[in-house]
């Protein structure tokens, strides 16, 4: 953490206006962090994200790996004795980082979400069969998947699913896809 800190309280004020997330209620008990199943890969623990958000340390929060590593399991929000909506605040930061053009510390996680919503926009429902290939392309992993042979594992699984009648081969388009498109565009 930085040796000298100039708190910027407007950062949290803005977040709370969009929430509320009740972050200012945090008394740093670390119950959120102690129950977090994804903490082993985090660069900031959930309680640290809350603390830094209160102090307005925007860069540290938005550039952290943690906001993308968070598995959205809701254990923290459920257990916080002060009603801090930690998981929801993590989502708010993800969205903010994308909207303000901060490059995500876990680009593959972010691009999967984007690919998923792009897929929904096309037909109104998710077409699982198209999701992975589209994401490999978008995230630039297709080449390395082929070179490393990793794609073989995926193909084997897909084939097995297909044999068990568990792989739809064509997308389903709903009548209201324009409505769905409008929801995903306007927001």
């Amino acid at each position, binding site marked *: 953490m930085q040796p000298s800190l100039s708190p910027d309280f407007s950062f949290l004020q803005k977040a709370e206006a969009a929430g509320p997330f009740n972050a200012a209620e945090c008394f740093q008990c670390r119950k959120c962090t102690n129950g977090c199943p994804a903490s082993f890969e985090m660069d900031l623990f959930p309680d640290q994200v809350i603390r830094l958000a209160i102090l307005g340390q925007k860069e540290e929060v938005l550039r952290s790996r943690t906001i993308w590593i968070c598995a959205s399991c809701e254990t923290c929000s459920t257990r916080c004795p002060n009603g801090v909506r930690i998981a929801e605040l993590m989502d708010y930061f*993800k969205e903010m980082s994308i909207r303000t053009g901060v490059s995500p510390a*876990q680009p593959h*996680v972010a691009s*999967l979400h984007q690919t998923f919503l792009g897929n929904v926009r096309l037909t109104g429902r998710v077409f*699982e069969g198209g999701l992975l290939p589209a994401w490999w392309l978008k995230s630039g992993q297709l080449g390395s998947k082929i070179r490393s042979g990793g794609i073989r*594992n995926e193909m084997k699984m897909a084939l097995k699913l297909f044999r068990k009648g568990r792989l739809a081969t064509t997308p389903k388009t709903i009548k209201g896809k324009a409505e769905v498109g409008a929801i995903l565009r306007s927001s």
Partner: protein
Amino acid sequence: MKVTYYPGCSLEGTARDYADSIEGVCESFGIELQEIPDWNCCGSTAAHSINHTASIDLPGRNLKLAGQLNNADLLVPCPLCFNRLKAAAHELQEGNGHGFQTKLPPDLPKIWDLANFFATGEMLQKLSSGLKKPLEGLKLVSYYGCMSSRPPKVTGADDFENPQSLDKIVKALGGQPIDWPYKTDCCGASLMISRTDMGFKMVGKILEMARRVGAQGVVVSCQMCQSNLDMYQERIEAETGKFFGLPIMYFTELIGLACGLPGAPNWLSRHFVDPIPLLRKNRLI
């Protein structure tokens, strides 16, 4: 009895096995499933992660359509869909509604997590009286995952740290539910594709505990939990050098099996870790 039904996207694809077992079981218990006409994707983790407005308006559209049917109950098998529908209802009914397109009708059906629907006193009674082949001697842990219980302010769950629905169902079917500490620990479904390494660690921990408490199999009600614990089990075994050999079965498949529904053996044959040898050993198939 007629109910409104929201299957969600994966039940049309990779969770077709779950969908078939639900349809079979509901039919045999006289529950008529009326699908929400022209339903759309609930937005899943992607929407709530990076597009808050859509994460309310996408399920909001489904609720609006559900409100046009005349049923008192809305059954939702996918816990993530359930969670997002509840979150939308919560936000649109209790929040100020600003910034969202959806206008909800005044009367919404009760939104049910499917396992909870089957674990009411009345349904358990029906299960017990329909028993043909009790699951005698079958030791099972119930794995609930995250989304049917958390956060309780949204889901309305009161036993969110120690849910009971699946345990009660297993018991009603004559099986032996085993208590264990990882009922609601996260399997990392939202990370399984983009951070497979993390998903493997999270699933490995759960499978190891199931094994440690002496379970012969795992009962689930979530198709994401099912595929995470099932499809990757062999690869996790190879990476960790541990053996689990745990079939991961939907509670609806077990209902089918215990109540002697003809489709059940077929539903159970569509997983990766084959449950059939275990069921044979227990003379259930």
